[in-house]
């Protein structure tokens, strides 16, 4: 069987991601690995958003809320442990295998509540209501002076992973890359399953789906929760990478950034958001080193991509091949 362009592009991306720790010493060492880790983590959040935008036609403009919540769960658990102040009778924890699932759980519950309310609307109203909920959560954390408010909260150390300290940048990169691979694998299975057919069918023609007997609300809500949980995991990883969390992680600028990554990389494709995240962060980093007003250049860049690659960068890579 000859390889399609799609397969080749996918393999190339996988090869690049795996090569990073080996190539990094040639390109600035830990700095390069840290940047690549950031790409991988943000790619988890962006791809989870694509499950909503690309597969479900659900343009959620508040996806950073779940990302930020996941990050805060890690930071707060570590804060209580470090300061020896129990929270709700719990001492807090610094164990990744405890706090990362907890971060996903909390983000998932938030997504369940917000999704249950937001999914009763559609179109522009859905965009606005998801944004409004995310901003509410943002302002709650700005007001929470106990956890640093506006200034954010620093972590004393990274989480332990199964009791082991994650000392070097490489190990943490591998863990993050593993999380991305797992999330993409789960999404791939979801998309081709019966559940995925129901979700995509509802995006394509809701009236038709209802007439066939699909109650689309439930499928959408489950997708919303899964996407929220994956964003929560990305947030937990991000808190570990930066050893710092702040309300900015859940603000609308961050949500918009995730959307740009998805659309720039290519919707409805597993790897598009990964490419989008990489392009976004690499271009941002390059421009920020060059000028303080990097947004002025970045804006037109995004516009150009949108104009010349309406199916995103992934659409360019894979060519005209139909699904």
């Amino acid at each position: 069987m000859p390889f399609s362009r799609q397969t080749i592009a996918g393999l190339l991306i996988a090869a690049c991601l795996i090569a990073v720790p080996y190539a990094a010493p040639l390109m600035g060492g830990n700095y390069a690995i840290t940047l690549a880790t950031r790409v991988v983590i943000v790619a988890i959040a962006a791809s989870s958003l694509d499950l909503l935008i690309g597969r479900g036609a659900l343009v959620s403009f508040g996806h950073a809320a779940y990302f930020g919540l996941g990050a805060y769960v890690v930071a707060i658990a570590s804060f209580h442990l470090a300061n020896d102040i129990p929270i709700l009778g719990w001492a807090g924890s610094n164990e990744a295998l405890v706090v990362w699932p907890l971060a996903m759980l909390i983000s998932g519950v938030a997504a369940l509540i917000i999704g249950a309310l937001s999914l009763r609307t559609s179109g522009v109203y859905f965009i606005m209501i998801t944004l409004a909920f995310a901003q509410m959560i943002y302002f709650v954390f700005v007001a929470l002076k106990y956890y640093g408010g506006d200034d954010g909260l620093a972590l004393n150390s990274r989480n332990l992973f199964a009791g082991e300290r994650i000392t070097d940048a490489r190990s943490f990169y591998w863990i993050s890359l593993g999380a991305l691979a797992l999330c993409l694998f789960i999404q791939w299975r979801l998309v081709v399953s019966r559940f995925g057919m129901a979700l995509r069918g509802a995006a394509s023609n809701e009236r038709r789906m209802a007439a066939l007997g699909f109650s689309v609300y439930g499928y959408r809500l489950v997708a919303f929760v899964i996407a929220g949980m994956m964003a929560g995991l990305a947030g937990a990883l991000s808190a570990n990478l930066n050893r710092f969390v702040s309300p900015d992680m859940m603000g609308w600028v961050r949500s918009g950034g995730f959307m740009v990554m998805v659309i720039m990389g290519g919707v409805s494709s597993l790897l598009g958001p990964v490419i989008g995240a990489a392009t976004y962060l690499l271009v941002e980093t390059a421009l920020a080193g060059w000028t303080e007003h990097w947004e002025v250049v970045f804006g037109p860049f995004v516009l150009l991509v949108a104009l010349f690659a309406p199916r995103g960068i992934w659409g360019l890579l894979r060519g005209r091949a139909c699904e």
Partner: protein
Amino acid sequence: MSAALILDGVTKSFGALRASDNVNIAIEANHCHAVIGPNGAGKSTLIGQITGEIRPDAGRIRFFDQDITDWTTPRRALAGLGRSFQITQLCADFSALDNVALAVQARQGHSYRFLRAAHSDERLRGPAMAALERVGLAERAGTRVDALSHGERRQLELAAALASEPRMLVLDEPMAGMGPQESERMIEILQSLRGKVTILLVEHDMDAVFALADRISVLVNGAVLTTADPAAVRADPAVRAAYLGAPAP
């Protein structure tokens, strides 16, 4: 008689317009019941109320001894109410086969199944393929809907309705825009369903109506003018004046 569907005083207004005016129709199980009437008579509005897309202002709808007036559209569909749309409603970016497979999937129970790939699931593809064959679309199974011709999409609508194995089929102008050969085929398929499935047929093609219907209701300005056997309807001077457009012989 055992009724599959009973419309009991169904009334619906859009502002000052009475789209359904105290409609009373009983459709016997396994009969083909046609509803005819001029453009704007309220036929599609009636279908909308039967399938649950439109809420009646007054009146009740019973489906096989259950009052379904307050049921959602998906619930009615799962209870065995299949339909086709006057203006095609399909998943345009899906293949023909996938559109029908969705109907099969809906019939087989909830879709909170995350592990197995739907595309390689013979329990979905088998029945879906059979439905496509039945309407003569088998060679087009892999073609995306937006690449199908108008007539093919109409056939696909029927295939999806058939694949959900409904107890009752509600068809809103299934022949609209079809060529004569495609219409022939459609009539043949519906003929083969006679006596097995209850059918509510809204159609402007009178040849089709008189070939298929066991009973006919004539709808004018939202109200039922008459419900009778095809022969009686054909001869009724009031029907001719209102709809068939020809003076009584």
